[in-house]
């Protein structure tokens, strides 16, 4: 069974979660100095790699070779997204920061 399964009974809850998260997203990001646009974007991009959790579940639940292949590919792509996204964001922010110290 899918470990985080939450079907019909929780459907409304899931939609509620969605709506709240969207509003929260708008609230949290509303004021960003344009200087930080790129790190914010790539940082958010890394978070969208959360699909990795889905990919792990897909592989975990796979009963056929084909499903395993699908899931493993998903794990690879999502991990590139996650690791790459966070690393590159950190690198950029590191550049922003060193100069502050220098100043």
């Amino acid at each position, binding site marked *: 069974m899918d470990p*985080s399964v939450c*079907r019909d009974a929780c459907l409304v809850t899931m939609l509620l979660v969605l709506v709240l998260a969207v509003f929260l997203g708008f609230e949290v990001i509303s004021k960003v100095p344009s200087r930080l646009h790129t790190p914010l974007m790539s940082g958010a991009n890394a978070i969208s790699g959360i699909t990795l959790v*889905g990919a792990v579940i897909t592989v975990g639940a796979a009963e056929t070779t084909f499903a395993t292949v*699908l899931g493993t590919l998903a794990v690879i792509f999502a991990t590139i997204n996650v690791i790459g996204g966070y690393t590159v964001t950190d690198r950029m922010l590191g550049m922003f920061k060193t100069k502050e110290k220098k100043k």
Partner: protein
Amino acid sequence: MDRILLINLVYIVAAVLFIIGLKMLTSQEHARRGNLISSAGMFLAVVITLIGGEIIAFHWIIIGVIAGGIIGGFAARFVKMTQMPEMVALFNGFGGIASLLVGWGAYHSGSERDLFTMTTTFLAVLIGGVTFTGSMTAWGKLSGAVTGKPVLFRGQMIVNGILFVIILLSGALFLMTPWADYSFFAVLVVCSLILGVMAVIPIGGADMPVVISLLNSYSGIAACAAGFAIGNNILIVSGALVGASGLILTNVMCKAMNRSLGNVLFGGFGAVKEVKKAAGGRGEVKPVSAQDAYYILEAAESVVFVPGYGMAVAQAQHALRELGEILEENGAEVRYAIHPVAGRMPGHMNVLLAEADVPYEKLIEMDEINRSIASVDVCVVVGANDVVNPAAREDRNSSIYGMPIINADAAHTVIVLKRSLSPGFAGIDNPLFIKPNTRMLFGDAKSSIETLTAEFKQT
């Protein structure tokens, strides 16, 4: 404790970490820690899924994570800052394809095929597919593998329309007969992938900041849809957060160009053939030699640089910083004016100048610089064009009329570093070049700047 309950509780912690991390990314002092906090949330979410779930094929996950980690880590570590827009596009696309695959996997082995699950699977595949090929096309355009100009052909709208109808039809058939063979699903996958290419290919290079942030939003929405498909809350929350933040950024970019999102997506902007009518009569282009430009700069007490995509192409950011430092030693106040859509992604210029060690405080946003630009002695335009085009203020017939610009022409003297007189990416004449206070320094931006620096060093 109940295993599923525990997993979901940890997911809540992860979601909180994402939110705190995102929040901290919006302020300079905390941004880096915010990114770390957000990555801790990701780590938690993945680890709890691994140990809490009933995972059979562990080794495949490990192999996948190691392979992806190595590729992603290397790419992120060694990419040049000038290639950052391409990199972001690539990562975006990978997130999209991962969501598509998760949706596919859910369809393939899922035991439940109720309407709701199938609808969200449909969305995950559609949006994930569009994000993937759309990002790949954007990547191609940014890296030069595909032409940066808008690609338009006759009947494009008809082709897109047909494609759209096929997607809706196959989607509907797929939803009605979820237990039938794979054919509708396959059509859906293929059409989504084609749609992604078709959606991005008509968009010109100058509009890339909008496209990149929109694709960023899509990748979040795709993850969110995948979350619904597999009934996973953390995917829904995180995906929605990214989707919302991407939309905000997209909106900011659109505002900075004074255009609606629809206009960017369907306008085929750069392809518009401008009727070459100079609004206020033709003036004269006044070229200047590097030496004369040096005299102008040498006498300046305040200098503002306006970088654009041309600076990124010429990789002139380090040379520019050096010239800026020399000007400061010479007693001038040096600042850098950044237009929100300068370059090919949101914040592109800031990243490049930060890489070249330009102090953060010297990067000034458009509105702020415009307040004081009239008292600036020399404004040096480095590879920027449309973002300093006064036609946006003056020429009602111009297609960029109304776009907020950096009022470079208000400075006492303007020096434009430019390769030739060709119009910018929007394909529009720039009256700035013929203003009486403008001097054109023709040549490669980097070598022009280096020549200027050399002039200063000689004396």
